[in-house]
């Protein structure tokens, strides 16, 4: 008998590939094939039919869109249309769409993120030539404080007082943070300060920042955990938190920036996508936005709701527009905020 239970360990000797080696080879092939199979999945997802709309949005309006999608389904244009939403940080969402995330309607927190998608050729460059200049909702930057406002924070000057802990997200990772910084800077300019003085104010503000979380939602979580005395946030985000019973009070600063959130339809989207956007801009849709805490862009609906009126409400255009502001203030190597953080850091780096 030639067979033997003893297997001498000699490469290449005795016999050809044993059953054990074959099994091992099959196992390894399966291992190698697994990730390749995963790659095939997006291709299998395929193109969308007219009966569904892929919505890619920033994270804050998630609760609002739940209500809006339900109401849209009740309209004639929306009957039978499925809205498949995706929520995430505005900048990340924009990058994902450029990298191939299926999208029919895109709604971002601020214009530079829309510019990314326009630059990639996915959205027409005349997206902002509509009656509402491409915007679907407005809001303002508000102060969120503890119930009863124990530290009496009502103006921008109160934020830089010693002992006041400010929470604002990190400007390099959060779109919301950029609105906050421009609101602070613009408030100073609109009170008659020079750009140098306004920049000095930013330095004092960031010096008082006890936390700079990576996103607006992380900032809210940090504030709710008990840290800090005041949080700079979108008014609609603050209103939502308050409606959920969180222990916060909302203070409208006397000067603040008008937050404008852009929306657009992807060039290759079906007709349901345009119908959905038209619905969002219609009186019925804008009414739901307002009920959710967003300032409507339709003046006919805005007059029905009583949002607080700041003494001075300015837009980003009065500060130069996002295209120039984004580079001038927020470039991670050369921006004004970068310089402010660095000069603050040099003094606190040892701490």
């Amino acid at each position, binding site marked *: 008998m030639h067979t033997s239970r003893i297997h001498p360990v000699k490469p290449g000797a005795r016999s050809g590939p044993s059953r054990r080696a074959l099994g091992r080879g099959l196992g390894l092939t399966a291992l190698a094939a697994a990730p390749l199979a995963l790659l095939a999945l997006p291709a299998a997802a395929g193109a969308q039919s007219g009966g569904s709309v892929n919505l890619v949005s920033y994270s804050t309006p998630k609760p609002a869109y739940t209500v809006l999608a339900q109401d849209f389904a009740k309209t004639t244009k929306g009957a039978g249309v499925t809205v498949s939403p995706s929520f995430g940080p505005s*900048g990340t969402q924009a990058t994902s769409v450029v990298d191939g995330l299926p999208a029919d309607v895109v709604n971002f927190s601020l214009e530079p993120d829309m510019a990314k998608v326009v630059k990639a050729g996915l959205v027409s460059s005349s997206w902002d030539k509509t009656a509402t200049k491409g915007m679907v909702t407005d809001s303002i930057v508000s102060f969120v404080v503890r119930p009863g406002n124990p530290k009496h924070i009502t103006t921008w000057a109160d934020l830089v007082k010693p002992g006041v802990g400010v929470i604002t997200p990190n400007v390099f990772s959060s779109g919301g943070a950029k609105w906050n910084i421009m609101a602070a800077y613009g408030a100073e300019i609109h009170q008659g300060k020079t750009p140098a003085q306004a920049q000095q104010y930013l330095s004092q503000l960031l010096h008082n920042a006890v936390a700079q979380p990576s996103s607006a939602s992380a900032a809210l979580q940090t504030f709710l955990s008990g840290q800090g005395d005041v949080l700079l946030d979108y008014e609609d985000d603050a209103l939502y938190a308050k409606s959920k019973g969180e222990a916060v009070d909302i203070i409208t600063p006397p000067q603040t920036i008008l937050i404008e959130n852009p929306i657009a339809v992807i060039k290759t989207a079906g007709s349901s996508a345009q119908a959905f956007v038209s619905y969002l801009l219609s009186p019925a849709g804008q009414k739901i936005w307002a009920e959710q805490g967003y300032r409507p862009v339709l003046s006919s609906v805005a007059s029905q709701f009583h949002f607080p009126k700041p003494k001075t409400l300015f837009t980003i255009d009065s500060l130069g527009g996002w295209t120039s502001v984004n580079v001038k203030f927020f470039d991670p*190597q050369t921006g004004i905020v970068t310089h402010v953080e660095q000069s603050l850091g040099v003094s606190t780096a040892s701490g």
Partner: protein
Amino acid sequence: MTNLDTTVGDLGLRPSSRDPGPAERGPGRRRNTRRNSLVAPCSALAHAGAFGAKAAGPTLAVTYLSLLVLLPVAALITNAFSHGLSTFWAAVTQPEAVAALELTLAAAAIVAIVNSVAGLAVAFVLVRDDFRGKSIVSAVIDLPFALPTIVAGLTLLALYGANSPFHVDLAGTRLGVGTALLFVTLPFCVRSVQPVLAELDAEVEDAASSLGATRRQVLRRILLPSLLPAVLAGAGLAFARAVGEFGSVVLISGNIPFKTEVASSWIFSLSQSDALPAASAVSILLVLISLIVLLGIGWARRRFNVPEAV
């Protein structure tokens, strides 16, 4: 039967892999010598085929490793240098990047050392002691593995933040960063030591004790040398995890630039600001330093001349 003897003989007397010559083959093999002219090439082909089939395993493994690990690292390197050497240099020497890297590497090193000791102690308790609820404790050790990191971050913020039930406010401090990292890296240090400790023969310790060794001497001279490679393996894993940790650290740290901003958070910020080459540059530097540390730990393990525990 004769062939069986030959096989056994080969095993015992000839550890080399060469084919036994004609004189050494058993009677069953003598038949082949008549077709000498064909035997050599056929046998060569058979050997090549057999070697090829056996090399398929390692080849597939290397391919899988390349696709999963090396390809992304190569893409990172390409991206980092895509805008030239000056951009790379500017990105890695930027004050925020330097501060973030210093904090991350220092915190990871301290956490690896602290948790190596703590993990060893916990492993001792789990292996050597018996108490009620031991299985629960053992399962709980793995909790940081199971928790999504952002959930861990929220939990740590609730426990050690401003509204802490223990009146311990670590939010926005470097100690908070360290605490979060200790939490997520403990399982590595425990699980790398536990199986090795369980397999250690208690008889050796008993013999030492009976010969007059104190408990401390037993620990230092007998237990620790055997456990050191496993402890180092756990330290390496803990270091690697701590260096890359984001979700659990970023909330309690407060993410303050130059104070509590870790490298992963700075890299995230750069990637969100469309500064992808800069993000890749800082990432590559982080990967390189981590690789050097891990290679150093590997060298230290080999120096103690014990086979690798993992």
